[in-house]
C-alpha cells in the first residue's frame, strides 16, 4: 500500500509527468454542449481523457461534472429532456454516431454512481450480472473466478466471502459502493467513470478505493468526479476544473494544485468559493 501511495505521489512530480501532449487521447470531447430542456448545463467543453490515467473532474456543486461524465457513456440518453451537441470520441470513434449502439458503448465505458445502487439480488449475482449478459464467462467456474477477483480488487472479498448469496442491499453503504465498483470492473470496460465514488465511505474504505483506482490505472482509463481536493491530488494525474458549465482549466494535477492559470481555479482549490 505504501508503495502505491509513493507511486501516486511520484506521478505528480515533473519527472513522471502525466502524458506527453502528443499521445492519442482515449476519449476526446470536442465543443460538448448539453441542454436540459432550454437550460444549458455545459458550454463548449473541450476535454481529452488520456489512456491509463486518472482524470479528476472538480468544481463547485451544479457546475456540470456529472453531466459531462454521463455524456461519456451516453447515460444522458435516458433523460428525456437532455440534448447533447458537439462531438465525443472513444478511440477516434464518434460515440454519438447514429450507427453506434449505446448498449455496446456502455460495456466499454463502465460507470460507478454517486449513490450506491446494488441490485436487490445476491452479492454474487450483482457482480456476475455483467459477465453473464456480455457472455464474457462461459462456465460457472469462470464466473466464480471473475466474482472473486472483482470483489478482491474492490477490497470487499474478505468481508463478504461467507455470505456471497445474501442480498447486496443488506450491506452497509460503504460496502455497497465497493460492491458497485466490483460490479463495474467485472465487465472489464476500457474506461471507468466514477461519480463521487467515495462520498459515502469512511476514510479507511476511501483509502482502499483510492488504492484500487491507482491499481486499475494500469489496465483502465479512469475519470473520477470528486469534491475532495485531497482525493483529486492523491489519485489523479490530470485535473479538470469546471465552473458554471464551463471547463475553466485542465492540466496536470500537480500544476493545477500548485500553479493554476485561472484565478477561479485558484479560488476554488484554496477554498474561497464553491
Amino acid at each position, binding site marked *: 500500500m505504501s508503495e502505491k501511495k509513493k507511486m501516486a505521489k511520484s506521478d505528480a512530480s515533473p519527472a513522471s509527468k502525466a502524458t506527453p501532449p502528443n499521445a492519442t487521447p482515449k476519449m476526446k470531447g470536442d465543443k460538448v454542449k448539453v441542454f436540459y430542456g432550454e437550460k444549458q448545463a455545459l458550454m463548449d467543453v473541450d476535454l481529452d481523457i488520456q489512456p491509463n490515467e486518472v482524470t479528476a473532474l472538480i468544481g463547485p456543486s451544479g457546475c456540470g461534472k456529472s453531466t459531462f461524465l454521463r455524456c461519456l457513456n451516453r447515460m444522458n440518453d435516458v433523460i428525456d429532456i437532455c440534448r447533447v451537441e458537439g462531438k465525443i470520441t472513444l478511440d477516434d470513434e464518434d460515440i454519438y454516431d447514429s450507427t453506434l449502439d449505446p448498449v455496446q458503448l456502455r460495456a466499454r465505458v463502465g460507470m460507478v*454512481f454517486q449513490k450506491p445502487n446494488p441490485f436487490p439480488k445476491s452479492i454474487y449475482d450483482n457482480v456476475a*450480472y455483467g459477465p453473464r449478459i456480455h457472455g464474457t464467462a462461459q462456465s460457472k467456474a469462470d464466473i466464480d473466478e471473475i466474482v472473486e477477483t472483482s470483489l478482491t480488487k474492490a477490497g470487499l472479498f474478505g468481508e463478504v466471502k461467507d455470505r456471497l448469496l445474501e442480498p447486496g442491499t443488506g450491506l452497509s453503504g460503504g460496502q455497497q459502493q465497493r460492491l458497485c465498483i466490483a460490479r463495474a470492473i467485472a465487465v472489464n470496460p476500457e474506461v471507468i467513470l466514477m461519480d463521487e465514488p467515495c462520498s459515502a465511505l469512511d476514510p479507511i474504505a476511501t483509502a482502499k478505493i483510492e488504492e484500487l483506482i491507482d491499481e486499475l490505472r494500469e489496465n483502465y482509463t479512469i475519470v473520477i468526479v470528486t469534491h475532495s481536493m485531497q482525493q483529486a491530488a492523491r489519485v489523479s494525474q490530470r485535473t479538470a476544473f469546471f465552473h458554471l458549465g464551463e471547463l475553466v482549466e485542465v492540466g496536470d494535477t500537480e500544476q493545477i494544485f500548485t500553479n493554476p492559470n485561472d484565478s477561479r481555479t485558484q479560488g476554488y482549490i484554496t477554498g474561497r468559493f464553491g
Partner: protein
Amino acid sequence: MTDATMNSKPGTEIRRPTLTGERLKKRYAAERRFRLYGLGSILTAGLILVFLVGSITGTGYTAFLQTYIKLNISFDPEFLDPAGTGDVAQLASADYGGMVKKNLRDNFPEVTSRRDKRKLYNFVSPNAGFDLRTMVIDDPSLVGQSLDLWIKASDDIDMLTKGYVDRTLEESNRRVSDTELVWYDKLDSNDRIESRFNTDFFVKADSREPEEAGILGAVTGSLLTLVITLLLSFPIGVMAAIYLEEFAPKNKWTDLIEVNINNLAAVPSIVFGLLGLAMFLNFFGFPRSAPLVGGMVLALMTLPTIIIASRSALKAVPPSIREAALGLGASPLQVVTHHVLPLAMPGILTGTIIGMAQALGETAPLLMIGMIAFIVDVPGGFTDPATVLPVQIYLWADSPERAFVERTSAAIMVLLAFLIFMNILAVMLRKKFERRW
C-alpha cells in the same frame, strides 16, 4: 454599549422552542383525537362488514340443507316395463312421474279427493321422478322391488321444515294448507322427515325448481369467463404498461393515451357491455351468452385497471436500478426483464387480481351480451351458453319463490368465498415475490 443592551434588542433575541405548557397539551390532545378518529373509522367499517356478512349468512346458511321425505317406493313394472323386456331404452323412457304419484297415493291411502291428491303430489320435488330414473338405469334389478327411500321434498315443504312457514297465519295466506300440515306432522312424528346436506346446490346448474337449482353452472361460467379475461387482459395490460412506462417517448401522444386510459377506468361497465354487443356479437358474430364473449368484454373493462396498477408498480422501481443495469451495458429489454419487471411483479399481480375480482363481481356488461339467460346445463366450453355468479344471484333474487331467497344469499356467500380466496392469493403472491431493498 454593553452585552445586556444588545441581548435585550428584540431582533437578536434567541428564541428556543418551549417544550411545556399549553402548546404541548394541545399537541398531545390533537394526536390522541386523531388516533381515536382512526380507531372509530376502523370500528365502523368492521361493524358494517359484520352486519353485511352476518345478515347474508343468517339468511343463506339454510340453503346448504335440504329436506328429504322417507317414502315407500315400489318400482312397479306396470309403469316401468309393462312388456317385461328389461330393455334399458324402455326403462329410460318410462313414466317415472306417474310412478311417484302412484307411490304417494299408496303411502297416503286416506287421500281420495282430486284436490287433495294434487296437494299430495306437491309434497315432493317435481324432479323426484328423474332421481328415481337415474337409480333404475344404474341398477335395473330394482324393477319389481319395493324400498323405503328418502325422496327430495318440494320447496314448500322444505321451507316448512326450515321454519319459514308461519302456521299462525290464515290458511289462504300460507303456501302450505291445513291438510298438508296434518300430513306433514304425521310424517314428522314417524321420523320420515329429515334435513340433509344439500349436495345438489353445489353440483347442479340453475332450475325453475328451487330445490333443484344449483350453483355449479354459474361457478363454471364464471371460471371460464375469468380464464378468458385473464388470458387477454394480463398480457395486453402488462405489455402496454411496460411500453408506456419504459419505452414510449414522453410526448403529447403518450399523455393523451394516459389520460384516455385513466378515463376508461372510470367508464361505467355497462358501456363496455354495449361495446361488446355491437362489436363481438353484431359485427364479428360471436355466440351469444358465451363465456368467450363475456371474458372479452370483461377484459376490456379490466385492462385499464391492470395498466394503471402495472404502471404504478413499474414507476415504483427506483430509477437507480435502471441506471445501474444500463451502466453495465444491459440493453433496455434486459433492464426490463432482468430487473424492473421482477421488482414490479408483486404490484402488477396485486393489480391484476384486484381487476379479476372486479370482473368476477361484474353483472351489467354481461347482461348486454345475453349472459342473463336461464341455463340449466353446466357449460362445457368457452362457447357454450353460460351465466356467471353475480348474474345468477341477480336472477335468483328476482324469483318469487321463498326458497330462492336463501339460495340468493348462499350464492352470495359462494361469491364472497371466491373473492376472499382471490385476495388471499394476492397477498400470498405479493409476499412471495416481494424483495427487500
